[in-house]
């Protein structure tokens, strides 16, 4: 049994801004910190709205970037874990956890 987040949602207090083709900036919720994300990551961060599933996000990433579906999904799960550990995801994702 491992928790799974099907519809991840960024923290509602986070602010973010894509910048050109270089990536983008994210302001961490409740912290006076700014995080720099690469182009794929800022694209994903924008899709973490609680309405896009992991599969839909991977569809978008594989459409925009030269990466296999397997790699994209693995990277996505890793990225989401990273965001969760830094308090950058909303509780909404956790509320939709499923048991596998």
């Amino acid at each position: 049994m491992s928790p799974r987040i099907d519809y991840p949602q960024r923290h509602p207090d986070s602010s973010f801004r894509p910048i050109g083709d270089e990536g983008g900036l994210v302001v961490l919720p409740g912290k006076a910190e700014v995080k720099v994300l690469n182009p794929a990551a800022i694209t994903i961060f924008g899709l973490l709205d609680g309405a896009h599933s992991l599969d839909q996000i991977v569809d978008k990433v594989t459409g925009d970037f030269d990466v296999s579906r397997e790699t994209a999904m693995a990277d996505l799960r890793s990225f989401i874990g990273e965001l969760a550990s830094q308090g950058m995801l909303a509780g909404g994702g956790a509320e939709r956890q499923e048991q596998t």
Partner: protein
Amino acid sequence: MGDQGQGKTAYRSMVETAFAQSVPLSAQFEITYRCNHLCTFCYNSPTGQRELRTPQIFDILKKVSDFGVLYLTLTGGEPLCHRDFYKIAGEVRRLGMALRIYSNGYLMSDPKVVEKIMALKPLEVEISLHGARPESHEALTKIKGSFDKTVQAIELLSRAGQKVNLKCPITRHNQDELFEVRKIADKYGYYVTFDPVITPKDDGDTGPLSLRPDDAFFTRYWEEDYIKLHDGRLPPRANHCAPEGTEAVCGAARTGFTLDPYGNMFPCVAFRRKIGNLLEIDKIEDIWGDSPVLAQVRGLGVDARDKLNKREDGKYFTFCMGVAETQLGDPLAIYPQAETNARAVRQAYELLKIEDESGKKSA
């Protein structure tokens, strides 16, 4: 996938990209010119027009957010004097922008106000401290009791865990108590920025310049005090509002803009050439790319950088085109405060035998 190249270098690189592509990361919104202080050097110049109503402010915030601004600063006047301040600040957050508040801190001396501020989760609060004691602070604010209230606000925000930046414009009233101002900042764990340049009012009135410190102060400040006040850090040779090595002298019309309480848009808080009125356009993109004013200001930024590069002492200048235009009517004219500071910084570099802006010393 995400956490790449963190640290100042990655952030600086991103800011440089935003600068090069004229992507506006930040905006300042003067939501009202009302204020509970009577600061003698305040640069605001109310026109007597009716200020924006709250629904109009919401409409403009939506346009700013849709344009992609990341950092939105609410300022004034005193922004907390706006009767709908909390609604407006809440809207900034609801729209997904990071909130900064520039305040004199007076109203934040009330714990209930600080509680409401904390609920907004601002990225930072910036508070002006004009001295280390009531006499000096209140000589500028003209409000009895304002020093104690501002310090009380700083204490309450510190206890609440809010990030606060203190700023202290240096005047003849406080020029001899900067170390005590630093002590107040230290007491609450905050950083204080000392600003050695007093500017004219937005309408060109140079009255505030009479408050500037004497020339002897500048020599002492750059040669001795700056280093002590900044934990041994050497003075910057130039401190422009743009990354070093970029083509323009500042980020005006590039990485930010300013809005006044009437909805007018300007290249920056200091450079008050009107770009347009946000009530009259559907979206900011309509004027950001094509505005002749913005094109002109971007070009002037490059001209100013070129002009300084050609001067033998240009590398010691911190130069603001807005101050030059307001004070002398020419955005490329060298104004006396810039010259005085440059001369003092140069003397300091020669005295301290600093070889380059990285702070490397030859002796």
